[in-house]
């Protein structure tokens, strides 16, 4: 009786196992932003002078093509300062010509806890596809052995669709810049602002861990005689109006303290820059191609000025 039962179960699970195997094969063989960025940083170790870290604000908003020095954008969507630090520590010794590190900091970057929603599945991709050792992944966590198990099936199917339609799921150019936020997402910035602000609200005010991570990157940069630019990227005014002003002020002050305490740090606050236009945005907190060009040029100029000042 048990044999019949087990046989039935096995037969039932065969199609499911085939789907799982196919998705696993897809994730293991099809290049993604993670594998691609890992590949290009290794290929360009000796060239890179400026390294960009951060989340989607940096990924879509800072285009290395408009920076005078040899630049690589190593930012990614929902990349936390925790991952930024791990990535930096992994590669810093292999970057002999590194002069600048640009890190974007937004409303929630400093309060973000490790292993929150953003890392639920991404941490496994950092581990498997960027060869990072991630302390928050327990040795007992079985998901690290199967990328197909880390994402929801609907997301995996969408990715497979995208791959079949476009032939790639890499969403960045040869310098790591996220190039698919070309104009706008078609929604009203005012309407979207409230939702985006609510999504980014974590009600946390303890910045100590992330400030510690930033300080660790700054200290490592100091030893390499390298400058750190902490950039608060432009966001739509409607979005800012829904954020907690006390927390925003705390973000600004914390970054200023880092700037004042460290010679090699410059804080560039573009959050509500006077040159912002509505047409610069893809959505309330992300720049589009036009905005990325405009603000990368501004950042580039500030970096050059800052160099001349020192």
């Amino acid at each position, binding site marked *: *009786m*048990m044999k*019949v*039962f087990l046989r039935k*179960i096995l037969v*039932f699970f065969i*199609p*499911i196992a085939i789907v799982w195997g196919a998705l696993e094969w897809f994730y293991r063989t099809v290049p993604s932003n993670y594998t691609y960025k890992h590949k290009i940083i290794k290929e360009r170790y000796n060239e890179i002078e400026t390294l960009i870290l951060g989340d989607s604000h940096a990924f879509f908003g800072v285009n290395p093509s408009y920076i005078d020095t040899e630049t690589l954008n190593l930012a990614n969507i929902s990349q936390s300062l925790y991952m930024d630090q791990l990535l930096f520590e992994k590669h810093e010794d292999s970057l002999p010509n590194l002069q600048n590190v640009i890190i974007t900091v937004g409303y929630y970057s400093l309060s973000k806890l490790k292993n929150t929603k953003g890392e*639920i599945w991404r941490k496994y991709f950092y581990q498997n596809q960027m060869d990072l050792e991630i302390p928050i992944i327990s040795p*007992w966590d*079985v*998901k690290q052995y199967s990328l197909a*198990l880390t*994402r*929801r*099936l*609907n*997301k995996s*199917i969408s990715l497979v669709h995208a791959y079949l339609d476009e032939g790639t799921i890499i969403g960045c150019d040869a310098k790591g810049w996220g190039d698919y936020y070309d104009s706008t997402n078609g929604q009203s910035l005012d309407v979207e602002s*409230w939702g985006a602000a*609510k999504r980014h609200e974590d009600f946390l005010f303890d910045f100590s861990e992330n400030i510690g991570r930033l300080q660790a990157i700054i200290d490592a940069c100091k030893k390499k005689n390298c400058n750190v630019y902490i950039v608060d990227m432009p966001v739509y005014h409607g979005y800012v109006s829904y954020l907690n002003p006390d927390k925003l002020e705390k973000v600004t002050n914390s970054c200023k303290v880092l700037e004042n305490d460290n010679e090699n740090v410059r804080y560039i606050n573009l959050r509500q820059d006077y040159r912002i236009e509505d047409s610069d945005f893809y959505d309330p907190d992300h720049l589009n191609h036009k905005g990325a060009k405009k603000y990368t040029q501004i950042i580039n100029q500030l970096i050059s000025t800052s160099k001349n000042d020192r």
Partner: protein
Amino acid sequence: MQFNTVDFALFFPIVFTLYWFVFNSSIKIQNVFLLITSYIFYAFWDWRFLSLIFLSSIIDFLVARRLKNSIGIQRKMLFGISVFCNLGVLFVFKYFDFFLETFVDAFLLFGKPISYTSLQLVLPVGISFYTFQTLSYTIDVYRKRIEPTDDVISFFAFVSFFPQLVAGPIERASNLLPQFKRRRIFNIEKSVDGLQLILGGLFKKMVIADNCALIVNNLFENYTEYSGSTLFCGAIFFGFQIYGDFSGYSDIAIGTARLLGFDLMKNFNFPYLSKNLIEFWRRWHISLSSWFRDYVYIPLGGNRVSNIRLIDNILIVFVVSGLWHGANLTFLAWGLIHGIFLILTIFLLKHSRIKAFLQTQKSIFLDLLGIGITFFIVTIAWVFFRAETITEAFQYLQRIFSTSLFSLPQGNKWFLLFLIGYMLIEWLQKRREHLLDIRHIFSKSIRYSIYYAVVFLVLYFGGNLQTFIYFQF
């Protein structure tokens, strides 16, 4: 370790294989294996709290054995020790801070501030469930309804049995304990039924509850921004979230136990199809409501008392039941609302004309009307269950019952339609054992198509992992 995780999907097949193929030589070995497995299962959350389960088990095991041969005051003292220890631990971990804060707030009302330090203890997962389960054993032994067991392994395994350890069903010793002493024989029909329950439970949890949770969290966090109709839908979504979450968990627990050869009691029986509140409480969280019936309501006199005492008894049971769910005034209010409406229902149905009318006039329209009214009351009460504070609950309700209640609700209409479709399936299945009880469908290909469709829905729409709500109780 949660049932809806990859960890459990790996853990259980290993347990199943070892249980039936390696440790099957004797019941004793199987029980030892189940005990170790259950402790490992619990340790995945927090191994430190295993000591509480161990303490609760050892106290009740020893007390019950001594109760067997004791009489008079000694018997009462032994019983008191068990109740004091079990409820004491529960009180310290769950209620101490709540009562302290309420006490301090009460003094503050009279202008007398008191300085205090709260314990801020982490609530051990499932403490209310296993405390009630082990307590029922001592009470039954004390009342001489069951004989105390001499088998320490069986008893410890009964208290910590992993399928129902953290969120029930709250089993009675008279049902579950003897099953640890009987030889378990693998039964294919039971096992298929168990798998159906697990699949149906995963559907309820991962497709219904977890997707409702996303909408509900947003609506309850930002209720000032939405119209009355949207917030009313939010309350409905929460009703489905908690139903999917808890009944889904129970189904998986019962199914898992069935695969190991155990029969756990039914915990939910299509509660949203109840035609009145009395029926609702016979179908919702059956293991808890029957616990309160047997160990609180009936000892208070049950319904064979005067009307005033009856009202008192019902209110006491529902206030305690509310507080069982959590140390917060919101749960107390939730219990009170149910208590009050249940009293009204009882007296309404006692009325001779209404009684006669309902007995003679049977129609689907009346059934649907009853279901609708019951669902409405339950939905409104859920607002208190979900809100963080009483004030928030009232403000939420105030916004619901504004003129904007008659506007078109914002967003999520498709999901609402999906839930209506789900209720239709429940309606069709209401005389069956559970949601996926499709043994009556003769065609194998149709049965398998249904299974695969449910698996697809679980995998496709699931994955937005949310902790089971009832773990916090």
